């Protein structure tokens, strides 16, 4: 089966998964008690204003009508208007989504970088104290919830040593908005990004590290490693260019699951470090019954995971020449 058929078949599955995921979310959110007007009632919204706002949002229509409207709207790429902010969902969510992707992307990147390098070394120096120490450290890292790691890092690096800002994405007062580089490229931003990304990296490095180590153990037993050594190539070349390169394959398939965990974990890390990401926005939206924002946030989070699954499959085929498209 050629690459084209494989991609098409996977796309069809993708569409189905998105649709089912979507309907699940739609029903779920309509079950959350309360409606978008609840938060204004105590601040002076009169019952008439409330009725009128409910009607305006179309929440008084039967569920299936709302569902059909929503799907039509979505097919035209319009995520609708936020019930609370009254602005198009896209304008609000896109910036938040980027903030979360940059944060979690960096965290996962460091987690995989550490995972591959240290996992490979732990496999190479099997039986050494380094390996045993490495296993214990990774297991401890995996055993602590994100918020706990965050609190510890905050206490040590911010409140005690004062090396890093305590929260937010940039020092206040600077230029707002701007393009990607301008937002995420400045040193000031990197200083703010460091601790939250490190928190994520610590929690998510366990899976790639342990997986890398165990695949390394098998690969090192393979004949070709002995041949590469016999070829007189430098030790590090044999370790990384050959042994690690073969061991990294299973890590690709786990990437999608790790992304899922990262998407979930972002809610906690963003709360501890007041990071204006999509995780926290999603929680606010759920609490204030702002369905369009909550739906969009969930949709984007879910699609990142589904997409990563798709990318992982393609990457695996690219990385391992032995694999044909099953």
């Amino acid at each position: 089966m050629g690459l084209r058929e494989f991609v098409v078949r996977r796309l069809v599955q993708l569409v189905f998964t998105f649709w089912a995921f979507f309907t699940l979310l739609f029903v779920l959110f309509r079950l959350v008690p309360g409606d978008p007007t609840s938060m204004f009632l105590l601040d002076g919204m009169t019952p008439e204003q409330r009725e009128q706002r409910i009607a305006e949002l179309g929440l008084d229509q039967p569920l299936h009508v709302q569902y059909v409207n929503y799907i039509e709207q979505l097919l035209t790429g319009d995520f609708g208007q936020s019930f609370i902010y009254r602005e198009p969902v896209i304008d609000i969510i896109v910036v938040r989504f980027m903030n979360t992707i940059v944060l979690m992307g960096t965290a996962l990147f460091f987690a995989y970088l550490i995972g591959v390098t240290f996992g490979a070394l732990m496999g190479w120096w099997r039986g050494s104290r380094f390996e045993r120490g490495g296993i214990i450290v990774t297991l401890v890292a995996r055993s602590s919830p994100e918020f706990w790691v965050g609190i510890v890092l905050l206490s040590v690096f911010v409140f005690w040593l004062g090396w890093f800002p305590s929260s937010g994405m940039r020092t206040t007062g600077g230029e707002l908005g701007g393009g990607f580089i301008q937002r995420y490229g400045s040193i000031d931003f990197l200083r703010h990004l460091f601790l939250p990304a490190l928190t994520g990296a610590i929690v998510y490095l366990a899976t790639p590290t342990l997986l890398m180590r165990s695949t390394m153990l098998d690969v090192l037993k393979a004949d070709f490693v002995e041949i590469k050594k016999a070829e007189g190539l430098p030790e590090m070349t044999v370790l990384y260019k050959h042994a690690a390169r073969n061991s990294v394959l299973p890590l690709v398939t786990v990437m999608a699951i790790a992304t899922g965990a990262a998407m979930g974990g972002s809610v906690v890390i963003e709360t501890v470090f007041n990071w204006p990401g999509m995780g926290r926005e999603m929680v606010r939206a759920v609490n204030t019954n702002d369905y369009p924002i909550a739906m969009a946030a969930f949709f984007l989070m879910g699609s990142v995971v589904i997409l990563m699954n798709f990318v992982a499959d393609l990457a695996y085929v690219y990385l391992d020449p032995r694999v044909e498209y099953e």
Partner: protein
Amino acid sequence: MSSGNHSRRKFIRAAGAAGAAGFAVSVAGCADETDEGTTPDGADELGEPVESIQFLGPTAGVNAFRNELASVTAENWEEIGFDVDLNEMEFGAQVDQAVVQQDFDASLLGWGGTPERIDPHTFIYDMHHSDNTGQGGRNTPGYSNPEYDDLADLQVTQPDENERQETVYEAQEIIAREQPRTYIANEGGVHPYAGSRVENIDPTLGEGLNSFWNMISVTPTDGDGTVTMGYPSEIISLNPMQDLATPDRQFVRLLYDQLFRIGPDGLPQPWLATGEPVIEDDGMTYTVEIRDDVTFHDGEDLTIDDVEFTYELYADSPTYSGLVEVIDEIETSGNEITFRLGEPFAPFTANVLGQVYVFPEHIWGDVDPEDLADFEDPNWIGSGPFQFDDWERQSELQLSAFDDHFNPPNTDRFIRIPGADVSQLIGDLEAGQIDFVGAVPQPATLSRIEEDDDLDSAPFEDIGYVKIAYNLRREPFDDVAIRRALSYCVPKEEYVEFIRDGMGTVTDSTISEHNEFWHNPDVEQFRLDLDAARQELADAGYGWDDDGRLHYGADQ
């Protein structure tokens, strides 16, 4: 929480206890031994046990203080024989279940004490008049007492403050006696600020450092000409035509001016108006002259036409037509504007002239009423002391001083940071990233602020309060004895002195003691007294079985 949650809670407690451990276990947390205490001899033949109380309260995440208060109150109610089912809920969900669905027995919430509510109208009329018992109305308990209604209607029509005061006093006495709600405490407190970085702070009644007056008087001393404020939630919109939550109103009023502003003392004072309104034919017509030196942020002059245009805009706006309903006719001549009312309305200056923001006609002119709420003015052009610079949601709102204003602020730039929660904002304050926090800190923070010589705390009193509303539409809460007994169980002193570590003042009336003029000091007091509570129940004919559970009397 769906209503089903009510019974499930009891099941969970049992399941949680026995379920996992597999043998009869009494789980930590639920009331262990109920000390007997002196139970007066209630009715001898007992009827049905009194229904259990579905008690709604905030989660610790929403408000840690009130969450603790709710659990202590629930324990005390159980001591005098009630069975209490405490549901801890998110703010929106609780408002929906209590205020909209009215599906509750008791609900612990608070009423904000914004300056607009210094005029007693809200606390006397809105919250207790029988007209407002509908779904979403402010009379959540569903209290209806014709005698009280008359008083509430009367006070609105009394332009003479002393006469009105008498009526308001009498209204407070009835409410205190009938306890449709337990009025617990005015949650005043302190707002922390960096004394080393800002001065001329002006914490006002009801709002502390979030008040308009503080924001224009606070002055940066660390040379960067910028004051940065933290608030624990994000602004929803700066469009004055949308329904505004508290954080929104705090900033909309910086960008737009009104004819009158509610001063630090809670009384309206001339702002765009040159002086007090001229009131004729016993309160039916108000004439106001406006200043001639006011311009909008884009340089256009603010004229009487803009004022007239604004009031007509409010009349057409679906959201705010109710606010200006009382006005029948408007006329303008030269720099004066005259309002003819349909009927006398005592709080007209404070509640209408002090609320309506003046819009630039050249921007809002051709927006038709339906789209008002969704209209987006990219620069939010108003005539207020601050002008809009830039805003990135959940990140930062930047305002700068409008120097041509007749009362310009003391800082060049004013920045607002929405925090994840108060603890995290305090962290930013201590790290020097923000200059003051518009939220009451936890006791642990107070001790830290005292030690830190960069930081101080600005005390302020509150005119709103935290209260428990009872649902008079359901038995047994229609019986005043039950409500009074329940009120005796609320530990008001412990709440202010221990749980809030001294921040705030205990109250027994719907009008806070800090609203000196309108507050009636000698209404009936309900302080923690379980025996008095039991006495109320015994006198009303209730009785207790030998487990101490409260029952209706056989004859009731």
